[in-house]
């Protein structure tokens, strides 16, 4: 049965092996011509090929795309696919290893003005849609406007621009305000090649935001609102032929693509056709991968457990598999405002009590599940520093310390029995077993926990609602987080600062409001030097754990198959899955 994958909602995470590694230059196999072996797709390209327009690349996935409309999806896997038929202002370098931002429709990465409030971009010359019409700065602006201000029609995409850009005109969005002359004040398009953004506050990571498909150009005249997804006007190397909801997406190499407008060769149609079958059962996807009747699992979710045992037990198959870190952190939040967890000792007790090793097994083990996490930032995000504030042998937790902390807390709070509730997503099958483990671990230190499972779609009325968690005494929540764009800010801001505290639609489930964290974040956003900025992110990470606001549990891994006829296969760390734009078939 189909279950929505939460992992896919929260999208891209980023960058290679920590700040240090980043400064240290290139990691291993960039550009290397690797032969097939286990995990070589993490750092090198498997079956490198420069063939173009060759064969049919077959993708399959067990769920459907949230949308093919670049303005209406929050799925990382969708964004990876969108790069096939769209161009955004900025994108990720097409190479294995650490994420690197490169300009796509823009001629160059942006430059911040002295006050940090204005960013200006120029469009490359000669970029066209598949129908031959030129791509203009106005189209890019319109794409941002419809996705960020047109939420009543396109509700699903991210809305960073609405938060980051000034808007003195109180723009109502293109669907309510049909006057083409009206725009938010934060976007200027002085001519058809130039686009200028005005920010409400300095924002050093703005280039990262421009990688979002929100910046994909959409001509106002071609926009059909909620049904635009049926016939997206392609700006990329592949033409958008057709998409049948719940069935398949068909793309083919676009004859109209102007390679001259793509100096970095980011958009090369290696395949003649691409067929993406959706809503195929998870078992079928795996079977097809094993039998060579499909080329890649588009969801990037990794194989089913049954297949995992098959793959790992067979050296030939294992050589065709990669097990990357997906950038998704599964963690337990502890609400810092709900009694008695407003007492840091009670929160520390939880930190000590959790048996992360058991959690890891419940979550699917080291290969299908992921690595035990001891920091908020995953190893692939800038700012990551290896540390473990709550060290225990084998990560099994330290009951003695946990009991000591809970005793202190009980004494200070004058409570004898502690009961609370833990929220989790019932449509994310791996979270439920984790909730079971949490329940058991906390029972061992005398905290009675009841489970509160809900669908992801109910998040904003459950754990995402302040009144709900307070009324229901739901101090704990098992959730997962990946950055929407690959930066420390992208990962940390929404979950650790007051930016994520909202009456509904909360994302800082700990409701952590620590001035130390907040000031570190403000400093980071003004810091233009990446290394200095990343060091600040690492400090924020540490501070949050000192506050015991959350228990990092698992940095997800997914075992992915790359059948031998797949060319140019490598893991794009921005998405934590293969880079579909680079793929071809033999």
């Amino acid at each position, binding site marked *: *049965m189909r*279950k929505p994958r939460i992992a896919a909602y929260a999208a891209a995470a980023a960058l290679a092996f920590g700040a240090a590694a980043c400064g240290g230059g290139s990691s291993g196999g960039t550009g290397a011509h690797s032969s097939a072996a286990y995990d070589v797709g993490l750092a090198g390209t498997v079956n490198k090929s420069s063939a173009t327009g060759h064969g049919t690349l077959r993708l399959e996935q067990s769920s459907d795309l949230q949308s093919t409309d670049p303005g209406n999806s929050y799925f990382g896997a969708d964004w990876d696919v969108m790069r096939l038929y769209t161009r955004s202002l900025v994108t990720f370098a097409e190479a294995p290893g650490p994420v690197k931002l490169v300009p796509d429709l823009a001629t160059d990465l942006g430059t911040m003005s002295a006050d940090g409030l204005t960013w200006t971009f120029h469009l490359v010359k000669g970029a066209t849609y598949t129908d031959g019409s030129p791509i203009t700065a106005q189209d890019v602006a319109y794409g941002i406007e419809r996705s960020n201000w047109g939420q009543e029609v396109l509700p699903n995409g991210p809305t960073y621009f609405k938060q980051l850009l000034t808007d003195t005109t109180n723009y109502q969005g293109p669907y309510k305000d049909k006057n083409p002359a009206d725009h938010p004040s934060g976007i200027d398009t002085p001519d058809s090649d130039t686009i200028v953004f005005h920010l409400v506050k300095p924002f050093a990571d703005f280039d990262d935001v421009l990688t979002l498909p929100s910046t994909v150009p959409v001509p106002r005249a071609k926009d059909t609102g909620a049904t635009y997804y049926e016939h997206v006007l392609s700006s990329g190397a592949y033409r958008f032929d057709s998409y049948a909801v719940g069935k398949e997406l068909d793309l083919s190499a676009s004859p109209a693509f102007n390679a001259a407008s793509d100096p970095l060769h980011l958009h090369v149609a290696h395949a003649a056709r691409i067929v993406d079958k959706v809503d195929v059962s*998870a*078992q079928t996807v795996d079977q097809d991968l094993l039998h060579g009747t499909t080329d890649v699992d588009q969801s990037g979710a990794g194989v*089913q*457990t*049954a297949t*995992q*045992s*098959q793959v*790992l*037990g067979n050296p030939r198959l294992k050589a065709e598999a990669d097990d990357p870190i997906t950038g998704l952190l599964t963690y337990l939040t502890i609400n810092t405002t709900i009694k008695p967890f407003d007492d840091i000792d009670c929160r520390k007790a939880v930190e000590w009590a959790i048996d992360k*090793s*058991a959690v*890891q*097994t*419940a*979550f*699917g*083990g*080291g*290969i*299908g*599940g992921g690595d035990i996490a001891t920091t908020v930032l995953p190893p692939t995000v800038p700012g990551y520093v290896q540390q473990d504030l709550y060290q225990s042998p084998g990560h099994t937790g330290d009951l003695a310390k946990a009991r000591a902390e809970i005793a202190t807390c009980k004494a200070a709070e004058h409570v004898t029995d502690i009961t609370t509730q833990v929220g989790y997503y*019932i449509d994310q099958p*791996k979270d*439920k*077993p984790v909730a*079971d*483990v949490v329940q*058991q671990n906390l029972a061992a230190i005398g905290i009675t926990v009841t*489970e*509160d*499972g*809900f*669908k992801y779609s*109910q998040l904003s009325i*459950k754990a995402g609602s302040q009144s709900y968690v307070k009324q229901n005494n739901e101090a704990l929540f098992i959730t997962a987080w990946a950055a929407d764009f690959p930066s420390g800010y992208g990962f940390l801001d929404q979950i650790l600062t007051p930016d994520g505290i909202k009456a509904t639609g909360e994302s800082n489930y700990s409701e952590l409001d620590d001035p130390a964290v907040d000031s570190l974040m403000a400093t980071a956003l003004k810091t233009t030097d990446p290394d200095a900025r990343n060091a600040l992110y690492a400090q924020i990470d540490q501070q949050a754990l000192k506050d015991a606001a959350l228990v990092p549990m698992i940095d997800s891994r997914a075992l992915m198959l790359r059948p031998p006829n797949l060319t140019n296969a490598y893991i794009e760390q921005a998405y934590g899955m293969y880079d579909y734009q680079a793929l071809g078939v033999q």
Partner: protein
Amino acid sequence: MTTILEPGSAPAAEPEAAAPPGEAIEGRSPGRIALGRLKKDKVAMAGGVTVVLLILTAIFAPQLCSLTGNDPYTTHTRLIDPNLQIPSGGFGGMSSRHILGVDVPTGRDLFARVVYGARTSLGIAGLATVIAIAIGVGLGMVAGYFGGLIDSVISRTMDVMLAFPLFLFAISLSGVLGYSAFGLTGNTLRIVLLIFIIGFFSWPYIGRIVRGQTLVLREREFVEAARVLGATPGRIILREILPNLTAPILVYATLLIPSNILFEASLSYLGVGIRSPMPSWGEMVNEAIALYQVDPEFLIVPGSAIFLTVLAFNLLGDGLRDAFDPKASR
């Protein structure tokens, strides 16, 4: 009329074919006759014994589980191979401590889960059957006894309900309410919901049968006599008609339970019924279905539980029906 008066019993059927005649003459009560027949029906008795054992299993689930020292919730993650994600050591993790193995990925004891699953399945199916019987018998008797407008309304309602795509309705109903509603949450809500949905959707079948029987009974002498003696309709329905419906109700209830067990299991299998951690056989099958290629044990245990339970109830129900109504022979 030129017939020989045959005092006493109604005319015994002539022995056509091999239908055994003449038992009525020996003057045993129908219930005892049926019991006698049932006792001779070895297959039905096997079903009956299994049913009794299942009910005992459900009632004494905690005691039964304590024999192996397990409960259905405790996780044993160390029994699961962290890479292969199947119980270590093969055979679904069977051992002297976990006699049916453990589930994946948390390693909960399958024996305990399947035993507690009997509680869920039988409890929900049983209570749903009680509801269906209560509504069906009540409305069926009222419709059959009073006739006229009341009968029309009730019969039409039954017709309409039988024309509903019930399974879709049940899925919609249990799917739309989400995690909490009516002040109930989680599996408590689901259990209540399932009982009512299943019960509510299966009453028209028994309703029809009871209505038909009541129509016949209404014309019988003893009902006529009671009416002449001034008994109220309520009294007649409860004291005269209901006792005579015991046999069909008993038979039908026994046959309704397995179909309700399947109903519950199917909804849970589809993910709109009971959810883990509460053990339910349908939910266990759902969890196991992705894994049965490498760990069939995990699927076979709950699947067989559903199969055997349904089979046992069907055998018993068939036997009961044959015992009460030998003409509907097997």
